């Protein structure tokens, strides 16, 4: 596992989604760590706007090589916008996972309660340090 970028200001889930708070909405994407673990992304099934989703449901699914992965919904809410650019150019998730490779914007039912369940700051650092150690073990 090579080096990876984990922006301090973001919130994270255990399945490697990142969450950026933007007013009363959240922008969601996949972490640099996970995109490197997955390899070149060849397809993303993004969520439709106006879809109401519960925490833990599948937010989107991702294909890389013969692996099909999923990103789960980080908190209850409604999809405001999916990044349709990913449909035609999924590689931007690899190239810029915290920028143009974002996955969707959601309006949470309860932002404060939702954020309380996510990892942030030192807790996120600890999580990624453990993940890195796990995936850097010699074969």
């Amino acid at each position, binding site marked *: 596992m090579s080096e990876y970028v984990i922006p301090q200001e973001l919130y994270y889930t255990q399945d490697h989604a990142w969450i950026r708070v933007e007013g009363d909405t959240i922008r969601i994407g996949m972490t640099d760590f996970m995109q490197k673990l997955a390899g070149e992304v060849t397809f993303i*099934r993004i969520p439709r706007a106006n879809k109401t989703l519960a925490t833990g449901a599948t937010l989107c699914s991702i*294909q*890389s090589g013969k692996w099909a992965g999923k990103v789960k919904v980080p908190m209850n809410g409604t999809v405001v916008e999916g990044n349709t650019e990913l449909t035609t150019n999924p590689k931007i998730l690899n190239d810029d996972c915290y920028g143009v490779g974002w996955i969707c914007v959601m309006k949470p039912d309860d932002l404060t309660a939702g954020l309380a369940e996510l990892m942030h700051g030192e807790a996120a650092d600890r999580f990624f340090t453990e993940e890195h150690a796990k995936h*850097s073990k010699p074969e």
Partner: protein
Amino acid sequence: MRLYRLGMIPWQETQAIYHALAEAGQEALVLCRPASRYVCLGFHDDVQQEVDLSYCEENAIPLIRRETGGGMVLLDKDQLFFQLILHKDNPLLAGRRDAFFQKFLAPAVATLCDFGLAATIQQPADIVVNGRKISGNGAGDINGYAVYIGNILMDFDRQTMAKVLQTQSEAFRAYAKQSMAGYMTTMNEELGYLIPAEQVEEKLLVHFRQWLPSLVATKYSPQLRGAVEKVAERLMSAETLSLPGKKIRARQIKIKEGVYVRLHRYFDGYNSGSAIILIQDGIIRHFESINMGNVQQYDVLPLAPYINGIPWCDVSIREALQRWRAAHFDGLPNVDCELLLKWIIEGII
């Protein structure tokens, strides 16, 4: 870790079983075969693009979608399935997702070698014998579990596989079938006889036990079967089958790792035709134009020798087109190489 040796079971259970185990939070190895043939879509396949639904309906071939990667396949009783369900934190999974295929496929490679076949892994996830694919594989995340699935082709019905493909052209279907014959093989074809599945399974289990010594034979309980049947209903539902999938402008069929056959349509407002292209490891191995004899007043039939054997990229194809034009049409104004380049590269005009 639990071992489910299920033998031949109803076709839909062969896919639903590993979803149900992951959803129940059980690590396991499953060995099984389907009692009858069916079409299985990869998680991100587009059903309309990939499957000739009329043929499947007329011939009572059912469909299911799995939540793992890889492409659409025809599966039947002459394929032995091996499926491994591991929690995402299992230390066996360290490293990149595709790298794990090396470990996962090793028992199947050893099994084929036991029968005298020179099997090797073609990265990332094919097993080949003398360069021909003998095993198809995929992987996915289901409920926090990493699921790796594979099969050994004891035999393979290429005739029906070619017919369940949505090809848009009978010439393309015939070429896809021919390519499957050239780039795929089976134990039956390599050995000259069909080995009983039980013998292959026995060897496979020996090699899995060497890697996973903690396997404990477990009964297929009525509770698990009930859960499997529920999952199967979901995977066969119209809602699941019609999930949006990966769209490709040209029709493309992956034959094995690095080998693709493509159908490229041409229509310039007056003339229509197509090309069948086989690409192997980035090189055009076969180029064939169909009904393109009189496009823009020039004959594209002599184009093939210029295209065959060159890399499948803009620069090489542009150079080949210029050589072809210089040799056959020097001085003629109507030869539009850029249009032909677009047709050969992008797949549709």
